């Protein structure tokens, strides 16, 4: 497996999910029991169905979503991506800014692939303008 090509597939699959509500490409490259360790949320997202739900929940909370992925390095079954995003809050979720407020994300994603599918990912970074004490409740 070419890990950089796989990373490219992941980025396209995320794009499809976020921009076109098409979750199929992402489902094809994640194990059903994938685990995302979101350090800055203080929680794990367990399983593809939960990851899908997280994306849909986020899409419902924001508009004008702009995402930028950058490939850092990869070898064997391990690769790293840089993620920068700008979301506009619709003001419906406590802890996020009022409607029209901007949320900026800057994070690193590390992925472990098993048998050609993402098995585990670790994510850490910052989400500017979010009140985590309220948001995480």
């Amino acid at each position, binding site marked *: 497996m070419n890990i950089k090509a796989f990373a490219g597939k992941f980025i396209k699959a995320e794009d499809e999910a976020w921009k076109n509500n098409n979750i199929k490409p992402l489902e094809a490259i994640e194990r059903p029991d994938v685990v995302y360790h979101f350090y800055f949320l203080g929680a794990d997202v367990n399983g593809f169905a939960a990851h899908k739900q997280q994306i849909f929940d986020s899409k419902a909370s924001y508009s004008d979503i702009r995402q930028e992925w950058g490939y850092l390095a990869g070898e064997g079954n391990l690769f790293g991506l840089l993620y920068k995003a700008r979301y506009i809050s619709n003001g419906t979720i406590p802890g996020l800014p009022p409607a029209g407020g901007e949320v900026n994300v800057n994070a690193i994603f590390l992925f472990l692939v098993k048998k050609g599918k993402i098995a585990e990912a670790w994510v850490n970074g*910052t989400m500017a303008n979010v009140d985590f004490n309220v948001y995480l409740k």
Partner: protein
Amino acid sequence: MNTKEFAEKFIKAEDEAVQKGNFEPLKALEDPDVVYHMSAFGDLIGHEGHKQNLMDGRQAFSDIKMEWQYLTGEGNLFALSLKERLISSGKMPGMPPADTEITTNSLFLFRLKHSRIIEAWNNGSWKGVDIEAFVKTLKK
């Protein structure tokens, strides 16, 4: 090379540098031209740049507690998480007053070349300090 063993050496070398000011073990593990891409500070260039960053940390904080965890590794790549509890010394402009507690939580991805660290990426969060304001202070 066993990346987990290398990671353990790195963790010991960081501990030696941060707790005792002995940078020799770290120097032995880093390429002289190593680059650390730190999301909070920008790039640290070369072993000397990294060393200076750690020396600044020793000046800015007391009672430094670091908790490293090996996450995964393959070939010439490995990943660690780091949680820190720092007490501000009050000596560094832009940092909180003395005795203020600061915590960090971040991920590192390391790339090796010829059995030495050549590049690393770090991203995470700081609590107890406005890190963006602090970085602006450094640049003045």
